[in-house]
């Protein structure tokens, strides 16, 4: 995925929307902040997600963080390869390290998420 074309949440999830299917992951910035990942727990296929509600867990040596649903919808696919090999997420958070795909109830809601430049400004603030 090209990070420039993605939408982002306040909680560092990224979303790539094609039709009504969203691919969701977490940003390179979030992965770098966590560093040394130790565990990830993702929702099961079929789980109904509510935007802004927690739907998984990501843990590193340093800290533990929740994964938040970026949009309302239902999980259609889970990247089980990442759960087995967290290196995929560390190495390629915008590509092979994607986490879930979901069927989105209202695709227009994606417009409420940040675009790349807004997200870049936000993480520049956080890094300070």
């Amino acid at each position, binding site marked *: 995925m090209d990070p420039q074309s993605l939408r982002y949440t306040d909680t560092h999830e990224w979303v790539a929307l094609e039709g009504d299917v969203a691919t969701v992951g977490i940003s390179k910035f979030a992965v770098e902040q966590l560093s040394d990942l130790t565990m990830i727990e993702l929702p099961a296929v079929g789980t109904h997600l509510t935007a802004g509600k927690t739907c998984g867990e990501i843990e590193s*040596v340093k800290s533990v963080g929740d994964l938040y649903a970026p949009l309302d919808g239902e999980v259609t696919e889970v990247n089980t390869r990442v759960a087995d090999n967290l290196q995929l997420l560390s190495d390629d958070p915008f590509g092979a390290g994607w986490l879930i795909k979901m069927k989105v109830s209202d695709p227009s809601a994606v417009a409420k998420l940040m675009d790349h430049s807004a997200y870049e400004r936000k993480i520049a603030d956080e890094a300070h």
Partner: protein
Amino acid sequence: MPVQYTSIVDEHEAVRGRVGLFDISHMGRLTFDGPGVLDWLERLTTNQVSRLADGQIQYSLMTNDRGGVIDDILVYRQPFAYLVVCNASNRLPVVARLEAGRGKADGRMQDRTLDTAMIAVQGPRAIETLQPLFDQPLAPVKYYHLTTGRLLGRIDAIASRTGYTGEDGFELIVAKDSAVSVWEALLDSGRAHGIAPCGLGARDTLRLEAAMPLYGHELGEETDPFSAGLGWAVKLDKGEFAGRDVLVGRKAAPPLTRIGLALGGKRIARQGSLVLSGQREIGLVTSGTFSPTLQQSIAMAMVAPGSAPIDAEIAVDVRGHRESARVVKLPFYKRTASATAT
């Protein structure tokens, strides 16, 4: 000191396998001199200062009148002087306690924290890294002993064979203005040995594998040394000292026991997680991490005595998930013995 320079795990592995460098200047450094100093320190610490030989260092505790721990410290004996190294966050309470407990002691305490720096060189290649820069032989310096000498031919330094990592290594104390030169010279000297600058994150994973207590986790004003597994640093028969009367009772019946846990899952049981035996709550996790050496989630906990014997299968509530855990012997990691270790 940052949490990490590169990655906690990379820095951790550098110390276990090669050598790591830590800026620990935040630690408190207090010097004592004068004829009454031995008695003064003896009355406010739990270990026996009078057992120290010249050039020797002792792990000790300062306890309050309720037998709780004000801080864990190192006491260095040098000719005509003692040096106390304490935790950064406890420096002011420690200084206040020492001042208040001076009594009639003829002696002087100086807080040298701000005009000195402290750098730890830790790992199997620590001695090879440090020796070329230091004008006194380091190999004969035994564990928990010190020597004085010069770094780079011009910088006076105390080098102690101590550390907080479970590896061989040294801690250096130099004047503040020399700190950057010494740090850079050590990085240069250690390059051939694979040196890595290390942060607070690796310091925590390293000390936890070695089961060394951390103030605010295994130690605090409401925790007595016997519950924390540090009874060996309390010499009840040395004479009167702060907290002694209470500690006699704690030794006979410590309210808690410090244990080690190896978790079955990958979740990390962090401080405050509830420890369960069946459905019974037996205590709390004090520190937890992912052990890079064991590739496993590990934790230390303080539990009711007798409730969690070695090899018992118990559980920890980690954010609502019941995670299985086995009680294991501490430390989780012990380096293979070297000629200098005691």
